């Protein structure tokens, strides 16, 4: 199958430099262009102050498009947050949530984005209720498939049923490459060490992860109570036994942190991408630490890109750096990490 795999960067990746005031929105666009990426993904609530008001402003949008033009970038994906519990005493009604989704679809379209990322917490009837508007503004709603969720699961089946029943062309999946982790990222392990973790405990956790990869992860179920779904998933994947083993080995807070966090990564078979390719129109190329030799610590970049090629994927792989949160005690260099990751993607795509 012929494929057309393009590279993008999610500005989420530059959050530490933005937080420190070293990069502003334009600085992030400039850095993105420097890596050779041609696409840009935006979290409006991260880098556009007074959200969502400026996006309504024609002058702001003219400036946005002028900057994209200046750096040769194309909008790839707009990351929305359906804040359906914006009030602490209640969840927004279905109608209110659909209105919020339609607002976000409109904002995405105003900034030129063809795809809107929505989160796994988005109720299915909110998505279904927004499809007509999505078609009208021609923005596709992509449900992020983020660890511990996976394609080819009972969780995904519900959405597939909705796609089939409605015949929509404006809803599908955005896989997050964190679902293709062969092991726990080294940056997390090193942080645990700095906090005093014991090698014996780290090994228990790493061995348990390897065992889950070998055996296959028990998949998470669809439940709007995400805390409950998550706990069930963790228990079904042996968390209790593993935590007990770590405790027995004298594990302290750093070991417990490492053990608990190991359940936020998962491994899916890249074949899942091939099976679902008709419903995939954007990808979060999550990564944690790309080494100097362009090898990523945990995400199976070569295998995943090979699957995309085989499937004939036409869309962006959008770098999403998430290793920084484990380096904040020693310092983060997202710019270098994104450069390396883009090069790793380029080699896998062109190689």
């Amino acid at each position, binding site marked *: 199958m012929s494929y057309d795999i393009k590279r993008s960067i999610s500005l989420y990746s530059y959050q530490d430099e933005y*937080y420190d005031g070293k990069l502003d929105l334009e600085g992030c666009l400039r850095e993105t262009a420097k890596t050779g990426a041609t696409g840009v993904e935006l979290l409006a609530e991260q880098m556009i102050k007074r959200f969502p008001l400026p996006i309504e402003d024609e002058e702001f949008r003219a400036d946005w498009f002028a900057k994209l033009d200046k750096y040769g970038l194309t909008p790839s994906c707009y990351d929305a*947050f359906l804040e359906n519990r914006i*009030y602490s005493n209640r969840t927004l009604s279905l109608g209110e949530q659909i209105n919020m989704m339609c607002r976000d679809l409109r904002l995405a379209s105003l900034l030129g984005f063809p795809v809107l990322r929505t989160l796994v917490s988005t109720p299915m009837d909110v998505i279904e209720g927004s499809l007509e508007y999505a078609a009208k503004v021609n923005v596709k709603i992509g449900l992020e498939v983020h660890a511990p969720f996976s394609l080819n699961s009972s969780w995904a089946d519900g959405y597939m049923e909705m796609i089939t029943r409605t015949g929509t062309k404006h809803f599908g999946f955005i896989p997050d490459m964190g679902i293709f982790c062969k092991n726990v990222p080294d940056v997390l392990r090193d942080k645990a060490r700095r906090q005093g973790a014991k090698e014996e405990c780290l090994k228990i956790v790493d061995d348990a992860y390897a065992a889950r990869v070998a055996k296959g992860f028990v998949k998470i179920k669809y439940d709007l109570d995400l805390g409950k779904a998550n706990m069930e998933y963790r228990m079904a994947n042996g968390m209790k036994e593993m935590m007990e083993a770590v405790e027995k080995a004298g594990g302290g807070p750093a070991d417990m942190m490492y053990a608990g966090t190991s359940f936020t990564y998962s491994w899916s078979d890249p074949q899942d991408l091939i099976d679902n390719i008709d419903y995939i129109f954007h990808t979060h190329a999550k990564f944690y630490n790309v080494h100097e030799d362009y090898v990523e610590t945990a995400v199976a970049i070569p295998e995943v890109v090979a699957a995309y090629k085989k499937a004939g994927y036409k869309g962006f792989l959008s770098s999403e750096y998430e290793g920084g949160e484990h380096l904040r005690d020693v310092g983060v260099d997202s710019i270098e990490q994104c450069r390396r990751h883009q090069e790793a993607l380029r080699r896998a795509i062109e190689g």
Partner: protein
Amino acid sequence: MAARQIFNPDGFKNIVEDGKATGFQFEFKAQYYRGFTLSILHNISVNVDGEDFAREDICISVHGETFTLDQALTVVDSDYRWEFGEYAAILVKKDGGLAPGKHHIKAVQLIVPSYMPFPTEAVCETDFVIE
């Protein structure tokens, strides 16, 4: 490279009204990866040198408006978001303020995004000096 800065080193001071110290204030950045409405900030707890302060004695100030923590729960206005990378000022009532000299603060941000299975609890600690 350096560790992330959370507190504004120049933001620690006593609040003086009519020549009398009625409390103290400090500034820090939200430990979340985007800006948000104050309505999802469910709590800020403050402990200085081992002393806890009551929730009703703590206020948050962003872009020139000050809210009690209970009031913050209903703030959804775009002009009063806690923007990513920006300091918010936290005002704490304490008769006489803090004594001049060295102190240690532990403040915890409880941020509750709608989509997270568990809230984000960010423990922020530092030493500081009151002139």
